[in-house]
């Protein structure tokens, strides 16, 4: 028996900001879930199961927050699952939900991911005072910056590529009312003049810290037929993992990322991702990761990713728009960031992305990664149902 085709019929997110002091964590997730239900024109009673994800409990210091959120998410009397795969969690959470529908375990599933960074301190959570170790690291930027330098050395990319990505993503965010950063006066010169935090990573090439949540309603063919708006159909989805550090690890282009993309393309029947995919939402917390992932995901040959960025291919009106939503560089509620990539891909193929709609987007890739470039999750969604 083949898998049940999975449709995305509802998408909701909060207006992401630095601090939502007016709501509890429950109130925050509720907003996103409510908007997803409204989009799908469903009620809580229509939901068969809830799959929730967030980054480490350490970040907000609420142990197993899914327990406390059961009533806010209408999960009483229903199965509720929690997923955790560090920064990629928003993506893997959606995939777990999609698999429940594909396997015909449930017909309609609410999936949601969140982070309330104003109640947390991610930099602290990632830099605990472990005995017998010299504390050295200053947050995630310090971890990833040396790998960016390695990419620059390996490819000979000009120093300016990172600033082009940041400038593009922040301009895209101006078209997205849900994005956290709306830097109306930003210029390329300002990006290039912003302070170096973790050389070679500048302040303006770094993601913000956001409060936000994202929710999606995933359903089967029957549910899709009843949906008030065109659904997005899942054509492929995959996750891959590898250790954080091992001899032979390629931090610039991790094998797990390549394998994950290859699996998704195989499921979706994609042989030439550069030509066959119309829009990409990839997890770019530091601007240089756009060219790095373009290569890792097979959109460019090794060493050539930066040329796509430099030539404008990844602009909103380019041949392969990357991060039309403004991306993680403009909005980063960590746990939700992966799901926001998946949701934006779905919005694009549903034609419901508003001002940041990519004209004629029929197939889009959503991508997330997490940990020390060790967890990868991706899905490919299309405007048409998959061939069964």
């Amino acid at each position, binding site marked *: 028996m083949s898998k049940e085709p999975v449709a995305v019929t509802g998408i909701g997110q909060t207006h992401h900001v630095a601090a939502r002091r007016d709501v*509890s964590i*429950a109130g925050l997730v509720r907003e996103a879930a409510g908007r997803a239900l409204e989009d799908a024109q469903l009620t*809580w009673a229509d939901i068969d199961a809830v799959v929730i994800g967030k980054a480490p409990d350490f970040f907000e210091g609420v142990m197993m927050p899914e327990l406390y959120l059961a009533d806010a998410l209408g999960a009483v009397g229903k199965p509720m699952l929690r997923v955790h795969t560090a920064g990629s969690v928003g993506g893997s959470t959606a995939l777990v939900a999609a698999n429940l529908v594909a396997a015909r375990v449930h017909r309609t599933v609410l999936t949601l991911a969140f982070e309330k960074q104003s109640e947390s301190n991610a930099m602290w959570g990632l830099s605990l*005072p472990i005995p017998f170790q010299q504390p050295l690291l200053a947050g995630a930027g310090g971890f990833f910056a*040396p790998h960016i330098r*390695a990419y620059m*050395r390996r490819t000979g990319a000009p120093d300016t590529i990172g600033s082009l990505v940041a400038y593009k993503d922040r301009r895209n965010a101006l078209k997205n009312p849900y994005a956290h950063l709306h830097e109306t006066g930003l210029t390329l010169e300002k990006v290039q003049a912003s302070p170096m935090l973790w*050389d070679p990573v500048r302040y303006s090439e770094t993601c913000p810290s956001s409060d936000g949540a994202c929710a999606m309603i995933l359903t089967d063919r029957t549910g899709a037929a009843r949906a008030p708006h065109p659904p997005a159909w899942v054509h492929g989805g995959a996750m891959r993992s590898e250790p954080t550090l091992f001899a032979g690890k390629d931090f610039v282009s991790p094998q797990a990322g390549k394998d994950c993309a290859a699996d998704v393309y195989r499921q979706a029947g994609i042989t030439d991702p550069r030509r066959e995919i119309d829009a990409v939402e990839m997890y770019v917390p530091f601007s240089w990761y756009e060219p790095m992932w373009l290569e890792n995901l097979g959109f460019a040959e090794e060493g050539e990713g930066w040329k796509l960025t430099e030539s404008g291919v990844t602009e909103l009106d380019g041949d392969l728009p990357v991060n039309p939503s403004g991306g993680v560089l403009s909005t980063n509620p960590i746990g939700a960031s992966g799901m926001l990539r998946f949701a934006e891909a779905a919005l694009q193929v549903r034609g419901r992305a508003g001002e940041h709609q990519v004209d004629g987007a029929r197939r889009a890739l959503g991508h997330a990664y997490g940990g020390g470039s060790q967890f990868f999750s991706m899905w490919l969604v299309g405007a048409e149902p998959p061939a069964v």
Partner: protein
Amino acid sequence: MPEILTAPLVVEFPFTRSLGPVQSAFLTGLRERTVLGVTASDGRVVVPPAEYDPVTAEEIRELVEVGTAGTVTTWAWNPAPRRGQPLDTPFAWVLVRLDGADTALLHALDAPGPDAVRTGMRVRIRWAAERTGAITDIACFEPDESTGDDGRTREPVAHDGQFPDLLTGITAPARLDYTYSPGAAQSRYIQALADRRTLGERCPACRKVYVPPRGACPTCGVATSTQVEVGPRGTVTTFCIVNIKARNLDIDVPYVYAHIALDGADLALHARIGGIPYDQVRMGLRVEPVWADGAFPHSPEDMGAAPIPDHYRPTGEPDADYDSYKELI
């Protein structure tokens, strides 16, 4: 030093909580010696109040005031209170259904011993002298000997949730006490540092040398038991210049955070580079450890003044060819 090291690891942080409308009213109410609940869609009064209906998931906002005395629905004796618990003498954890409420609230009951506690007993709130808008504004419960109509609220009374200076957020300090052990392999590594030696371990399957060792090869999944001395010199494979000061670090910025492939190691370790201006550090730079007396921070005092590689400095050798270390980046 012991064969396998251990050290205390304290993880603590003052988390903040945005309360939202319902918890805001509830906690501000406690400050004003008022206990609020919320009426659910089935008419039950939920105390402490929830934001969303436990049955229908609908938003519920109909606040009511309930009594400050109630009935114990179940309990457990706590013979050895720990730091941060409501009382520092033995007490009972109790679930109390306050008068007018349909659900029970978890708190502490001040009682002389377990014989003095029973399900069904009447208790009342002992308010804290100083109240800030926190669950600890209820210092604890105490046995309530009074009977009959003493003027206390018995039925829930509608409440608008409004108080002067409504609290919208609280600080919730959290602390976890661990005993941390780096395990056998890293203990061997740390103890060798005392002799100014850097010990890696070789995987018997893939022959790769891990520094610091973890006791197992993450690729092959087999134990590494052969120690291999590596370094002391190595090559900077990549690095960044850190310009922002982390709150838990007392290193002056800017400093260079580098990946260093020690000679003989198959992956880089991470360390600070010194003895050279930060803007002259480069990939391929040859470096050696600078040993400093004094144990690692956050480590037990019985580590003594064993030397550790505080940072690495240039050796003065010519830079390594890119091809010689590119596989280690």
